[in-house]
């Protein structure tokens, strides 16, 4: 059969309903499928078993502090901008037990978390999200210390990417060089046409998921249409960010009055960091029973906007909202580059959309640049 499968780099066309066979193949291969679904007035990621659960025909209007579902009036499977969920929530869960410790005679016994990590198939990963996963790989796997929990989930994950054809009002992935075209590693990457999907094969594993699917090699017409849709998306970004020498701009303007201005508006509520697909800060909690004989160490999401985050003996290192917002933005766009070699921002726009008061980092940067 193998000779009947396309090879990595090749592009094929399938009918839209045939995507269900890909879902079935993933399910048979033991994957838990996570895909966009319509829930709680938004398009979020959750477990699915059928393509019928995708938000077919739906999109969302986005803006600063604003998100509203809308019907498209067509039958698009992936015709919406990214919602509030991130794949980070699956690779780096909001709460994870690391180990437990029990008192044992005179000493104690430590038992690491030996839960088998789940095998996820991520359906509909956008280019900006692929870029975000690559950034978290650098943080959790490729640095001097490896996070075994992230690494195990990441290595097992199957990625069915989608070239974005529907950027939102808060999107600027093109400015960040992160999208809308999927260029980072994936197993399969779809481009949605009106009646078909063009699928680029990213790996032999991805090709195997087409075993029960009727496919044909994409012709010039389909490839041209797919390419046009992605190019159109690139030209429809709702936002732009001038990235030229952002580190220099921010490091030279640490006392810029704009930080006071944004501090008046910022709630320090942590939403931007938690919807950000690259923010990775965590805290450790030791949870013991009443006698202290049994304790669990749990890792939970944390945020640089939390009062306790930068509290050390003697007081707060970053004692107010101005200091916290400045730290977040400066890390995201400048010192992240010093630390990890790339920007920490992929231009997905989530921090703009899901900020309850609609603070827009592209606007903040533009203001600092204009008045610098």
């Amino acid at each position, binding site marked *: 059969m193998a000779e009947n499968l396309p090879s990595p780099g090749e592009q094929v066309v399938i009918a839209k309903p045939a995507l269900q066979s890909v879902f079935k193949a993933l399910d048979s291969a033991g994957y838990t499928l996570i895909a966009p679904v319509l829930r*709680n007035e938004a398009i979020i990621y959750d477990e699915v078993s059928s393509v019928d659960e995708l938000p077919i025909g739906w999109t969302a209007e986005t803006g600063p502090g604003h998100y509203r579902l809308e019907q498209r009036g067509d039958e698009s499977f992936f015709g919406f901008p990214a919602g509030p969920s991130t794949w980070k929530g699956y690779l780096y869960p909001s709460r994870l037990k690391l180990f437990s410790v029990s008192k044992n005679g005179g000493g104690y016994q430590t038992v690491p978390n030996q839960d088998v990590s789940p095998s996820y198939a991520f359906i509909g990963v956008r280019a900006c999200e692929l870029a975000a996963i690559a950034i978290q790989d650098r943080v959790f796997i490729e640095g001097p210390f490896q996070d075994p929990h992230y690494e195990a989930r990441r290595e097992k994950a199957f990625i069915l990417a989608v070239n974005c054809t529907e950027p939102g009002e808060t999107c600027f992935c093109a400015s960040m060089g992160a999208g809308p075209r999927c260029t980072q590693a994936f197993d399969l990457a779809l481009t949605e046409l009106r009646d078909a999907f063009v699928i680029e094969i990213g790996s032999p594993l991805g090709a195997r998921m087409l075993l029960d699917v009727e496919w044909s090699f994409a012709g010039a017409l389909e490839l041209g249409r797919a390419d046009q849709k992605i190019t159109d998306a690139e030209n429809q970004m709702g936002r732009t960010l001038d990235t030229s020498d952002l580190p220099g701009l921010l490091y030279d303007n640490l006392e810029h009055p704009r930080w006071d201005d944004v501090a008046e508006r910022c709630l320090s509520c942590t939403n931007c960091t938690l919807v950000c697909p690259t923010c990775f800060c965590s805290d450790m909690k030791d949870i013991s029973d009443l006698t202290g004989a049994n304790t669990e160490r749990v890792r939970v999401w944390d945020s640089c906007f939390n009062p306790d985050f930068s509290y050390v003996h003697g007081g707060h290192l970053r004692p107010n909202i101005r200091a916290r917002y400045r730290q977040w933005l400066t890390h995201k766009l400048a010192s992240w580059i010093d630390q990890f070699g790339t920007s920490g921002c992929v231009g997905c726009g989530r921090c703009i959309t899901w900020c309850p008061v609609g603070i827009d980092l592209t606007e903040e940067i533009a203001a600092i640049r204009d008045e610098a």
Partner: protein
Amino acid sequence: MSTAAKPRLAVYKFASCDGCQLSLLDCEDELLAVAGAVEIAYFVEARRQTLAGPYDITLVEGSVTTEEEIERIKEVRRQSRFLVAIGACATAGGIQSLRNWIDVNDYVNTVYATPEYIDTLATSKPISDYVEVDFELRGCPISKYQLLELVTSLLIGRLPHLPSHSVCQECKARGTVCVTVAQGIPCLGPVTLGGCWAICPAFNRGCYGCFGPVEDGNPIALGEQFMALGQTGAQVSRAFRGFNGYAPVFRQASEYFEDK
């Protein structure tokens, strides 16, 4: 607390609904462990027998609203090694602190058939306005998990691990979509201390601020956003003037928006 005798626990009630002290009985699975770890010396809702002080841990529910309560809280303080104020009434004055903005006699005359029976202070104020408080547990009602964590930490002799984050962090951790951004519902979550596991937004309701203000929050900016979403100043003021309305940060916000 590592003496041979079990630490003695007392639970006192002031002006309140009893919901917070019932959180202790609500511990169910852990209740026997608590009863095994401490001597429940004074807890009239749980034990008919009452033992005289002093007590190692005293949980105080309710706000101070009468002259008699002022004297009683002073005596409770004298009898207590660790005095812990529990719940919105004990830590902020509770919903009954609405009286602090008006003439209480208007309420008394409206509510009671025989107002002359009522002997009350003009204000409802938190326990810490009258005596030194060692620790506060927020919430309306408090979280039983936080109560257990507090008792555990006191028994072991370490600091309790309690959240300093906003309700938003709990919505995001549990995967609740923001009701303000996606539905335009005013929600106090961004300026409210977490601890409730963000229960209201999970049911498509805005946060009511049960756990009181988060440290270093920005309620004025949030209130301005509510007005941008179409609320009147009076509505914004009322949103802040809830169970924790008399907590200083919410009090200032409610007064700021009152005439906007």
